């Protein structure tokens, strides 16, 4: 039976569609022209200028600081949550718990942003770094919980029981047996939480207030005010960083790349 070539041709078209904008973006970061349109020769001046923009580096530092704290807290909350969901999967409490973990994934960003903003304003919390961290942990917990839960589901718990039988306390068994075996899952979940936190714009924009600026917020205001080739240069650096991270994490876990991204 002859198979239609149409789906394979379409796949090629889709891949071109995916990569073309990114390629053009990178290409134009080397354009010496101030305006995006015409090519006026190769230049690295936008990269050089990037280093004289303290606002960008401040924003980058904030972003990193937030992402590290968010990764830590969402790993703790998400892992305890996954352990509860896995071990007590039949209880009614866990069914409700699962719904609570799952629903934030379906809610559009803007709804989460506006509802958190209203809650912070109503409670009189000052908007800034703290509110950004609280908001980021809220949307990262669900991703971490589901990734870790996925690992737990194909996990042989008799090994933990064996450790207990051999005299390990439950704390020792958790620390010396469960934790090392969960480590790849935790690394994948942590990477997802970190990436989501670094990349988030919409929710951050709502809860940031005037004082705290993250990299996406900085990029957004640059797009709005039209500092074009500078954004291209910054984007290219971020792309290189992302592709390196993906490549490295691929080396560590063969399935890592399939479990995240926004």
């Amino acid at each position, binding site marked *: 039976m002859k198979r239609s070539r149409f789906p394979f041709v379409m796949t090629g078209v*889709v891949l071109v569609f995916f990569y073309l904008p990114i390629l053009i973006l990178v290409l134009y970061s080397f354009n010496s022209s101030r305006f995006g349109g015409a090519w006026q020769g190769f230049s690295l001046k936008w990269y050089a200028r990037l280093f004289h923009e303290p606002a960008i580096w401040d924003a980058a530092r904030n972003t990193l600081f937030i992402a590290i704290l968010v990764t830590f807290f969402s790993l703790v909350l998400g892992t305890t949550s996954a352990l509860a969901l896995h071990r007590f999967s039949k209880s009614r409490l866990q069914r409700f718990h699962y719904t609570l973990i799952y629903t*934030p994934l379906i809610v559009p960003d803007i709804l989460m942003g506006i509802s958190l903003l*209203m809650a912070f304003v109503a409670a009189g919390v000052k908007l800034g770094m703290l509110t950004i961290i609280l908001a980021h942990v809220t949307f990262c917990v669900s991703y971490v919980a589901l990734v870790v839960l996925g690992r737990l589901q194909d996990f042989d718990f008799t090994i933990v029981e064996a450790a207990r039988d051999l005299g390990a306390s439950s704390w020792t068994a958790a620390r010396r047996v469960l934790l090392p075996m969960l480590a790849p899952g935790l690394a994948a979940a942590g990477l997802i939480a970190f990436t989501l936190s670094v990349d988030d714009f919409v929710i951050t924009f709502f809860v940031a207030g005037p004082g705290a600026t993250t990299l996406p917020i900085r990029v957004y205001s640059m797009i709005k005010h039209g500092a074009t080739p500078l954004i291209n240069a910054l984007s290219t650096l971020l*792309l290189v960083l992302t592709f390196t991270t993906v490549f490295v994490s691929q080396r560590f876990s063969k399935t890592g790349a399939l479990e995240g991204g926004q």
Partner: protein
Amino acid sequence: MMRLRRRGQEVLLTFPSFLWLALFFLVPTALVFVLAFRPADPFGGIGRGWTLATLRALADPQYLAIAWRTLWVSLVATVICMLLALPTGYAVARASLRRRNLLLMLIIVPFWTSFLIRVFAWKSILHPEGMIKRILVWFGLVDANASLLYHTGAVILVTVYTFLPFAILPIYAAAEKFDFRLIEAARDLGARPFESFRRVFLPGIRQGLVTAVLVVFIPALGSYVIPDIVGGPGNELLGNKIAQRVFVDRNLPLAGGLSIVLILAVLTPLLAVLALQRQAARAVAGAGEEKP
């Protein structure tokens, strides 16, 4: 004693995430519904007392028009995504194992890059001085004064670009489990290629199709950055209106009211799918009982 300890462990492990999500997800969501009935205070906060001002403001025909536009832009983007995702998901599922992993990587990797940057990339491509415009003008396909940016088509295009991988993945996952010998059987029994595709393949991957539709349609309804950057003032969606009420005229209660409209728009397709699935499950159970 053992059972009590087990119960204690469960509560201990459940408590942190449960409390966090109750405090920062459930309560804020409920608050949106409550605060919509409060007056706005002039400093961008929430006033005291109760009012129906938000409800009255929502009756403004401009909001109805925007809700309608949000709905059909999301719908068109979803249909285009499905038309592209179906052949792609099918092709990936039918590729050899090595090529399949490569294709999946190629589909996922660009979407690890910043969402804002991808939208910006399209803005510079569609820009009046940008590449596509020049090519189209050169071929005489587009008038030199026409604008590709700030156009509803641009909003739909970038929405498709952003959400297409999320449509491809569930279709691929369903197609991978599909037994392709069924298509061969249908062909042997005389079905034409398109007929076997429509009547055997599509029903076979139904669950993947439903997931794909939802993961495009729901975030598209709530999109704000895309119409904000490539849409311009004439193509605002509900998300833009919510943001304007927050950042421009600091009217939080009205922003809350608009969010309620968006929540209802999101819930409708979700509940419809749940109801249909429950009905289908009951039909299957019913068919099982009828057997002797």
